[in-house]
């Protein structure tokens, strides 16, 4: 509205309302009150555009100002009290909650008061809406099946777009340059992601186990063969001379198993990897504890069947068959660690592992040199 036009057709300005236009404050027209004829007849309350024909599927003049106890003042009063009662519960719960908090807190009581408080509020609102408020069950127009615009509007949009895009499209050279520049620049912006982690350099195939390292328990005590009774197991780590961090521990955990006199199948070339002789009462073997399926520590040993079970997905490894997977999703044997008894009588490793421990990955070697810890064979 322009302000220079002072003609009579302009609505009066009310000086008290700071120049606001519109009707006198104290005299609101009838038509603003719900339930009146004008209200019911106004198509806009039923989603119908002003001036549009009244659609067949929207009943004309449906009166949605009714509410449940409209004609029953006593019922309405009771409904009101019911709602107030619900909210009273909320009030009391609030007080209770504060008291419990001050008294030191107790999860169950807090939960109970929170429950009662919120439930009182919620039920009160439901009753209020149901019993005392209008607006149920109205039918309105959606203004068509979808909000799709008509053809003229779409053409206008295409025109507007064309006005901007055409002059740009006329310069394909700039487009190409920009494309190239943004690609290079964009890629360089991504580079800092590399700071998130170190380069992969064979770490997946290496463990801290080295030639001559003693096997120590999780608290660092070296282990003698006699510490593990027949059918006993012990989780050990390499004694690198300093405390292992969690990453080294996760990668190097090894299970020492005393298989007793069970018939262990010794693979060719591994004749000296165990301690004690197969079939005698004490025979110690060592296998990586990291499941070849998804890396969980294989921790359940059934000495009766000599099976190791991974608790994550129940891969089962037969220790006597060189920890071959006999059930479950694990695809490979648990790698064996060659052992010997060092001059002081403690268990130690002859070398590192000869194959990678743990789950598979894209370029996993199938054999590594146990002394240089380099991959020697990929297929």
């Amino acid at each position: 509205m322009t302000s220079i036009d002072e003609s009579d057709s302009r609505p009066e300005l009310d000086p008290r309302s700071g120049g606001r236009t519109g009707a006198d404050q104290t005299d609101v027209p009838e038509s603003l009150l719900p339930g009146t004829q004008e209200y019911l007849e106004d198509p806009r309350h039923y989603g119908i555009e002003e001036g549009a024909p009244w659609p067949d599927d929207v009943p004309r003049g449906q009166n949605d100002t009714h509410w449940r106890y409209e004609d029953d003042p006593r019922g309405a009063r009771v409904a009101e009290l019911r709602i107030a009662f619900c909210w009273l519960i909320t009030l009391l719960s609030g007080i209770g909650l504060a008291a419990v908090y001050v008294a030191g807190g107790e999860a169950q009581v807090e939960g109970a008061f929170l429950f009662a408080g919120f439930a009182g509020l919620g039920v009160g609102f439901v009753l209020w809406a149901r019993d005392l408020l209008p607006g149920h069950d109205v039918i309105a127009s959606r203004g068509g099946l979808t909000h799709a615009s008509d053809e003229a509007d779409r053409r206008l949009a295409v025109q507007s777009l064309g006005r901007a895009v055409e002059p740009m499209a006329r310069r394909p050279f700039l487009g190409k340059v920009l494309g190239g520049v943004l690609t290079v620049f964009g890629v360089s912006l991504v580079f800092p992601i590399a700071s998130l982690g170190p380069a992969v350099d064979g770490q997946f195939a290496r463990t801290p186990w080295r030639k001559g390292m003693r096997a120590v328990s999780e608290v660092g005590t070296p282990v003698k063969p006699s510490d593990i009774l027949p059918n006993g197991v012990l989780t050990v780590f390499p004694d690198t001379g300093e405390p292992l961090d969690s990453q080294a521990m996760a990668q190097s955990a090894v299970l020492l198993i005393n298989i007793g006199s069970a018939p262990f199948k010794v693979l060719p070339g591994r004749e000296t990897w165990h301690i004690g002789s197969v079939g005698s009462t004490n025979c110690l073997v060592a296998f990586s504890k990291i499941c070849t399926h998804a890396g969980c520590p294989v921790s359940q040993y059934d000495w009766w069947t000599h099976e190791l079970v991974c608790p994550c997905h129940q891969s089962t490894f037969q220790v006597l068959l060189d920890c071959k997977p006999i059930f479950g999703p694990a695809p490979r044997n648990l790698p064996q660690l060659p052992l010997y008894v060092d001059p002081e009588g403690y268990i130690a490793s002859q070398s590192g592992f000869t194959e990678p421990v743990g789950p598979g990955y894209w370029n996993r070697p199938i054999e590594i040199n146990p002394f240089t810890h380099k991959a020697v064979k990929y297929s």
Partner: protein
Amino acid sequence: MSSTTERAAAQRRSSRVKSGLDYIDDRFGSSPFMRSAMDKIFPDHWSFMVGEIAMYCFVVLIITGIYLALFYVPSSATIIYHGSYKPLDGQSMSAAYASVLNISFHVRAGLVMRQVHHWAAVVFVAALCFHMCRVFFTGAFRKPREVNWTIGLTLLMTVLLEGFSGYSLPDDLLSGTGLRVVYSIIESIPLIGTKLVFLLWGGPFPGTSLIPRLFVLHEFLFPALLVGLLSAHLAILWRQKHTDFPGPGKTETNIRGSRFFPQYMLKGGALMFLTTAVLCALGGFVQINPIWLYGPYQPYAVSAGSQPDWYVGWLDGSLRLWPHWEFRSFGYEIANPFFPGILFPGILFGVMYAWPLIDAWIYKDHVAHNLLDRPRDKPFRTAVGVAALAFFSVCTMASASDLLANDWHISYERIIEILQIGVFVAPIGFGLIAYRVCIQLQRTGNMIIKKPIGGIIVRGGDGAYHTLGDHHGDHGANGDRLGGDLTGGGHLVRTGGGRGGAGEGAPGGAGEAASGGAAGDEVQSQRGSGAPKEAPPGVAGGETEA
């Protein structure tokens, strides 16, 4: 609106409201928007509330989450615990784990907040799954609502990530084991797996970078994404309006229900309070994730019977069901966890994303819909949905194979073998059953339909009379293209006789309405509102019995 005093009071209130709104409108010109917003109609079907329950769970999560974040310490630094929980006194653990112990045993109202937070997460995902099922089985994803289906799926994925990242924050033995498996799954991705997993974890597992990073994801990135996606979801919903089930007085171009204000707003608020109430009761009374019993995470220890939160069970189960295969050639290998951990969920979500296209192609249906299908009227789609649910259920069962083995006294090997067969048989079997049931329901439905139709007769602007509510049979040319699918989704009139309209169907229907059937109530109440005391011209309410 009876006495003059009441009228005067209404006048006065109205004028006060007016001057308030004038103030706003002078500045924003907001009146048309406000009017149409408050007059907006929301359908009243109960199944539409489940999505809202999910939303309110999210609200509860944010509020309780902020409280927890004030006390949580996102650090893997090793400390020796000397806190209020004596059984773990003197143990070495991460600062993160200790801080969650602190929240549980020392911070006042900390335990209840934590448990409400966790329960809200569990209920949240359950509500989302239900919400998704209702959208799927009723065809609510069809044109024009495909985009919201896509956004919804992205929300679901983000929520799963948000849930899993939160579950891992306490750094307890259980969640640490879950992380170990996830590490291996990512490591198994061909070509980029090892590099990617080093970037995420900052090196070999477990390292000390992950917990602070998870905290950033869980506190900031995922919630921000969720809020953004949720806003888009709701804005689109607002613009396109809800779908609705076919029923008396409902057509493709109208919408029937309660006004946004006051009905929907108060009831929606009430639902939020009631959801919160239930979550508080759960959080107060039902213990969840007692991390002090699991102990701090140790990379070489693990406990049997460890179960993740229910909503990641299907993935864990698929890892158990996939056989011991991995593939190797030319020195490269596709490792075992890749198939059940990446490929399988990738394909599943791919199919779900594409479903609106697939559905439109199957039913040769490219027109827009506002009225929903009843599941029985689209037997094939329903069968596919049921099969998918059966499939997820079997996978989820597999994730509890060790517990089932204990309970049922069968070896866990047998359980897995049974489920490996079941994962194929159950979807096919349940899908076929669902298909048959749909067809059967269609038939029986045809015979016993005596529901009232045409609750109201309206005189149009042209002076002719129209019966509302007998347009149900023809909302779009879908159906009848595949198998036994019947034309349209209407459930009121399908036999030749019934099609005749109000004259035939109504008398029996009116009788039922009086005896108080659900549909009858609807018609009665509509009749009530259709026949106001001062009936304006042009309306003839409740004429069907005449």
